[in-house]
């Protein structure tokens, strides 16, 4: 493990106001690379992720929600009661400390506190600030409350996932919460690069839904150009056949197989050893296989079901066929490739015990992935240290703020 200060973003100071996944996942990229990320929180209105508990009998308080803890490692937390003017003034002083403010509240929150960009930049011209709520800062629906579930629906991902003859199912997860943070982190990094060059800060208004629609540019362009409305179609493709997920031995075990060329089909037909499938006059070309994909899928499924998914994956990949076991959460935790990349890293949390934290998909040097030092913070865990070290307050000042209910 590398020491703090060694990361790419060592010395960068980020103030985070926000909740849920979209904002906090974005700032994690920085926290994991040496930046100081301070979350402004309050027990008066806690991050809703702090209230997600997995079991009825486990620890059940704001500091023991596994999802929150897993999403926010390496960050510090200061508790500030934002319903008091003194609390807002304190947050404003922290803005003076920060290079970057990242927030994902609804648009009214920051303005209500006088923490909107226009108010803040007056005293801090180099400030970089990003707002990333669901709909963006302008437009008729900007004040509408929303979570990622609505984002996935509005941006098209629910409609696109499932079987043609069945209801939409939506991809697991809330996809705007996984798409938007990487764009937000990219924009912050680009703004930091530009500030290094020009000395200028900037304000960035990001709509989570728009990051998802931009991702789906191909679908939008196909509709605008040809009037095509792409629908959900199970696992099938117009560019490959077979292209699907097939049963394997065991309870609910599956393998994905994608045959991307005629040559790969010949390899697969050889592995299966079925002379009819190997008949090039029937199945040799993509057009033939697309026309008969139901039959191919049936025969392939009859073959795959005798095999262990992991063994069949290794066998097919060894001959150059795209095959992947449908991995469960247990499989991922034991996955040899993820282990080789150091994807999971164990940190101990004082309430929850050992937890498996994850890294992102980027490695910027041979190893290790990044630097996980501390689990997601307890609410207000670093309040005193931040006031002392970053704002230069003495113990009396801090005690006085605490007495007046500002630090909750």
């Amino acid at each position, binding site marked *: 493990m590398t020491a703090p200060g060694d990361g790419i973003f060592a010395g960068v100071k980020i103030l985070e106001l926000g909740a849920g996944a979209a904002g906090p996942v974005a700032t994690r990229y920085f926290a994991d690379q040496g930046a100081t990320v301070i979350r402004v929180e309050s027990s008066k209105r806690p991050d809703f992720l702090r209230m997600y508990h997995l079991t009825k009998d486990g620890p059940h308080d704001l500091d023991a929600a596994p999802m929150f803890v897993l999403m926010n490692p390496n960050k510090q937390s200061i508790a500030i009661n934002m319903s008091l003017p003194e609390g807002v003034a304190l947050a404003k002083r922290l803005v003076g400390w920060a290079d970057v403010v990242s927030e994902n509240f609804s648009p009214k929150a920051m303005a209500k506190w006088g923490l909107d960009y226009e108010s803040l930049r007056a005293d801090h011209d180099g400030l970089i600030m990003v707002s990333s709520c669901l709909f963006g800062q302008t437009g008729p629906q900007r004040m509408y409350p929303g979570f990622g579930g609505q984002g996935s629906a509005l941006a098209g991902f629910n409609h696109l996932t499932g*079987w043609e003859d069945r209801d939409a199912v939506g991809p697991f997860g809330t996809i705007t919460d996984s798409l938007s943070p990487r764009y937000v982190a990219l924009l912050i990094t680009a703004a930091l690069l530009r500030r290094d060059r020009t000395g200028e800060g900037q304000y960035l208004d990001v709509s989570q839904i728009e990051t998802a629609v931009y991702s789906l540019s191909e679908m939008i362009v196909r509709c605008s150009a*040809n009037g095509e409305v792409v629908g959900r179609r199970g696992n099938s493709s117009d560019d490959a056949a077979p292209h699907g997920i097939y049963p394997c031995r065991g309870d609910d075990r599956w393998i994905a197989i994608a045959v991307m060329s005629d040559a790969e089909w010949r390899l697969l037909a050889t592995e299966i050893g079925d002379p009819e499938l190997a008949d090039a006059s029937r199945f040799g070309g993509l057009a033939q296989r697309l026309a008969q994909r139901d039959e191919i899928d049936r025969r392939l499924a009859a073959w795959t079901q005798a095999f262990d998914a992991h063994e069949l994956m290794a066998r097919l990949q060894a001959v150059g066929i795209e095959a992947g076991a449908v991995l469960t959460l247990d499989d991922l935790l034991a996955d040899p490739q993820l282990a080789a990349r150091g994807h999971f890293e164990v940190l101990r949390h004082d309430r929850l015990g050992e937890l498996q934290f994850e890294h992102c998909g980027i490695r910027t040097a041979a190893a290790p992935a990044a630097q996980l030092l501390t689990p997601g913070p307890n609410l207000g865990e670093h309040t005193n240290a931040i006031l002392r070290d970053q704002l230069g307050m003495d113990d009396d000042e801090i005690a006085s703020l605490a007495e007046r209910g500002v630090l909750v």
Partner: protein
Amino acid sequence: MLAGIRILDLTREAGFLAGKILADLGAEVVKVEPPGGDLEGRRGPFLGEVSDPERSLLWLALNTSKRGITLALDSERGRAIYRSLVKVSDVVLETEPPGALTKLGLDYESQRQAHPGLIHCALTPFGSEGPFASYRAHDLVTVAMGGNAALTGDPDRPPVRCSMPTAYYHAGPEAALGIAMALFARARSGGGRFVDVSLRESQLSTLMTAPGQHAHSPRVRRRNGSLLGRSREIWKAADGDITFALRGGQARTPNLKATVAYMAEAGMAPDWLVDYDWAAYNLNSASDDEIARLEAAFGAFFATKTRRELYDQALARRIMLAPCNDAREILDQAQLRSRSLFTTIDYPEFGASIEHPDFFAKSSRCRIGIRSRAPRIGEHNAEVFGEVGLSAADLAALSAEGVI
């Protein structure tokens, strides 16, 4: 924002978006295709359904703001020209299988001697090293091995992927971020670096820490159709699908109450629901019978309304409900229109104009967005090769030899 950054983009489809993002943000991205064009990346569907690689809608959608050249990297002359292009570039972005560029002598290690500031980003299915590094995968296999497929789909059918390639959509911006991080590090330290991005690993973030939650409190999780949590989250309206969640908690209770009020006005809220104690409601601890009773009442109501009616009322009443839009409905969304998300690009040679989602972020300082249409095959050969000293006569000779 990234003006002045020069990027050589050798990617196949999986990396188109990464290069596009950087180009739409202002970087000078040169897309490199083999002579004759990247026919796999220029596949259908085609504009006007006329089969022609210049009309590939995938290509046109995901290569905006880039310049385009053709260059045969399998020829010695082509590789020499490539090396001269690398010398004037900050970044190489590629999606070749691990080791493929090493065989051509074009890998990061062989370029960094001559160009210590070079940043080389390899976007591969599983990463450039490790036991699965040589495994092959497009989107489907990546999503299967990324853990998302197992949890997506109907319980009585195989696991399912999104019908558009979500693995590329996650890895594209993550690769762009990796490059920006390396640029930031270089600005501080002077040195370039290798950026190794895994498609599959980028996809894991869709699980929202589910692996770590599972390791902490194991429980069997299975795909369950429209029931994304314990209860249904995609419902039938009279004319299609909507999303709505029966989740409780401080942030969501007002919307549950507002929904019941809406139902009551339509005479469709049973008495027990009108007086429901939402403060005491917790989806995780509610009984199966309780959830079934709630689902039946809400579901019966939604089925009587169109998606338009429900969404209009949701907006007016602050109910967290939304239609499951398709592409046409997205293009019609008033909110997106009001923010000018879509930009029209003219393709005069085809007599067509196409709306593209523009780069969405609004900056107080920089103009961000699509600057030009995707390049035609070899469109910028003269310009780009001219920048490394090749003359028109050189280009004619190279073209005749099949190098460009």
